[in-house]
């Protein structure tokens, strides 16, 4: 620590170089935080890990085929099942066809939905009561409400796509949850609209079992029960259900990871180049220091510390700027782009920021390593003889 001042002064010896290198570290960290958070938003686990005792029943052939509502009662009778909510994906158009106005629209059974099934969502009891009481009302994730600025009592019209009706819904209020990218309305409302299937069929069943231990048994029981019926089922845990969609994003995920790794490597090269250039310019100086009695390990430590210190400064600034400046701005800017639907669950978490900070330290160590070793191995006579 007693050499901290020396290292500090050396880092700031050439201000332009220091600022440029730190800036590139900052830019790369911001980009990595954005990419990681986007990936997390895409594979959002709606319960934040608490959905371990929830199951989704879908048609064995996939989501495009509906299940008869008569199955509900039979599923409810399986021991261990707490509550079952049939749900239909409406997939309607809000305002216009542009992708930025897309959000999830699902019907649900309001009597049990927030009480027994999606029970880790936070919802004001008054809002819940109002939703239950009014057949044409709906509740929405807070992120969506913020985006569109809906006020309680406001009418929202969703134009059907594969279901050929329009829903005229009244906004009851918002809920908070890990996944805030959906709105929920009454199964009954869809039913009442006389769409041919709503009184006989449902898209999926979303259900809760008593404990996580019941999950495999109940899932097997459901699938067995309907195996030879007209509508065989495939029961998945909530996580597996989400993964279906993530698996299809497969290559995008791979791409984002790959990009992150490559740009990290690139920024390591930039920092290494900076440290190497600065060490090369100081060969004579290093030789003088050695003459004065500093050991090779000292020199190694100085150069490595310079690299780490520079990366740390970049890391701290990068994380702070990402959190408070770049990301709020970018999220705002992307609201009108096709990226918008992914932003509803976009959150920058502390672990992501911590990881980014950790990465900056790693970059500093990796980048400083080679120049530090080379500088420490300079022979005093060569160093003193060299004219830069």
């Amino acid at each position, binding site marked *: 620590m007693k050499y901290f001042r020396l290292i500090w002064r050396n880092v700031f010896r050439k201000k332009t170089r220091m600022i*440029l290198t730190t800036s590139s570290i900052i830019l790369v960290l911001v980009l990595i935080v954005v990419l990681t958070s986007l990936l997390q938003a895409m594979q959002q686990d709606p319960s934040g890990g608490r959905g371990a005792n929830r199951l989704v029943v879908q048609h064995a*052939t996939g989501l495009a085929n509906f299940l008869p509502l008569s199955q509900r009662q039979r599923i409810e009778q399986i021991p261990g099942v707490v509550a079952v909510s049939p749900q239909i994906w409406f997939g309607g158009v809000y305002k216009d066809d542009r992708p930025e106005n897309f959000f999830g629209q699902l019907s649900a059974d309001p009597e049990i939905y927030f009480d027994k099934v999606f029970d880790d969502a936070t919802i004001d009891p008054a809002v819940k009561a109002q939703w239950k009481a009014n057949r044409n009302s709906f509740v929405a994730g807070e992120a969506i409400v913020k985006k569109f600025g809906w006020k309680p009592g406001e009418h929202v019209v969703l134009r059907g796509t594969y279901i050929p009706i329009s829903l005229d819904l009244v906004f009851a209020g918002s809920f908070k949850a890990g996944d805030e990218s959906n709105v929920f309305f009454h199964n009954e409302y869809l039913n009442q609209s006389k769409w041919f299937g709503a009184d006989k069929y449902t898209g999926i069943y979303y259900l809760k079992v008593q404990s996580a231990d019941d999950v495999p048994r109940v899932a097997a029981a459901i699938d067995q029960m309907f195996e030879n019926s007209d509508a065989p089922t495939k029961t998945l845990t909530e996580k597996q259900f989400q993964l279906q969609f993530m698996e299809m994003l497969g290559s995008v995920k791979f791409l984002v990871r790959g990009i992150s790794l*490559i740009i990290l490597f*690139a920024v390591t*090269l930039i920092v290494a180049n900076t440290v190497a250039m600065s060490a090369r*310019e100081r060969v004579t100086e290093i030789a003088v220091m050695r003459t004065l009695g500093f050991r090779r390990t000292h020199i190694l430590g100085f150069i490595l510390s310079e690299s780490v210190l520079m990366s740390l400064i970049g890391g701290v600034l990068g994380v702070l700027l990402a959190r408070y400046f770049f990301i709020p701005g970018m999220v705002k800017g992307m609201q009108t782009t*096709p990226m918008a639907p992914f932003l509803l669950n976009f959150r920058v978490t502390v672990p992501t920021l911590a990881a980014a900070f950790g990465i900056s330290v790693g970059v500093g160590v990796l980048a400083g390593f080679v120049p530090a070793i080379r500088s420490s191995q300079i022979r005093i006579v060569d160093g003193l003889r060299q004219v830069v």
Partner: protein
Amino acid sequence: MAIPLKYNFRNLLVRKVSTGMTVAVIGLVVGVFLCVLALAQGVTRTLSVTASTRNVMTMRVGSQAEMQSVITRDQADQIQSLEGIERSPSGKPYVSPELLTLINVPRQDGKSSNVQIRGMAPIGLEMRPAVKIVDGRMFQPGTAEAIVSRNLSNRFAGMRVGDTIKSGSFRWAIVGLFDAAGSAYESEIWTDVTDLQAQTKRQIYSSIFVRTPDQGAAARYIETVKGDQRLKLEGKTEKKYYEEQMVTGAPIKVLAFIVGIFTAIGASFGAMNTMYAQVSARTREIGTLRAIGFSRRAILASFVLEALMLCLAGGILGTGLAYLLFNLVLTKPTGTMNFRTFSEVLFNFRLTPPLIAGGIVFSLAMGLLGGFFPAARAARLKITTALREV
């Protein structure tokens, strides 16, 4: 008079390590940029290629994708009798009522995906001239046979000729593979529409695929459908339909834009650092050049050119890397999700000449940004102080 380029070139060669690292950084950044763009390009091309302006898809009003549309038998019968539909040499109308649904099937990597299965009239194959059967034969109606695209066959498990596709209680025997010239059909399984209706217990169609003799006839046909109040259907040319589906690629383009801007600025800072170091290491040299008569402008141009050469080398390296990556590693088609249909779209990364040109321009832009300020500093040096420098 200008300073010869050889001077810059040799200077770059002398400082091997520093030059090499900067070239590598620029190369990586250009490579990443090209990868993301090639992905977007791949998706876009898949959805636009070989679509015809003569083929018209008729769907329910307001449907964004075929999968969302429902057409009854009555409606389908009425469409068959509309004017403007071309007839085959044997006198059959070119009409294929089609049903599209999703099935969840296992991939070769052990995971599973939703795939579109299209029921069609056998004449539907003839109406899509870009699609060729490359192995086996066409399916026979009434026998639960199917043909799959060669791409799907490579990506999914149990999809070779002779295999049986199983999903829930559905069974299809694969009798052939087809090649769809890189179009969206590459992501589909094809079977007879009546068979698909029977297996899924649906008595409806998703769309009616119709061929018209020319573009004018296509437009007239679309008008007729629109004008018929009883039908409540709308027609779109195949080309227009797939153009509208391209929104799938749009988020990737936004991503490319963000990644491109951030990495480009970061990398040009790296280049700027290298160039500043060059200027300060060569201060005396610059003084000498000025003393023997080269103007400030010549110095400025020389250093900017040196930065451009540096970054151009990086650009070429990056393009090369991307080219190798696409031709050696990412040769298999890859998939991404079409959010409108929840099914997988298969595509290939495509490195087109405009993209390559874009990558080079991108690297030169970094060179210009990274080279200008150091060059300006070099040009501003006073001869006397520069020559006195150690």
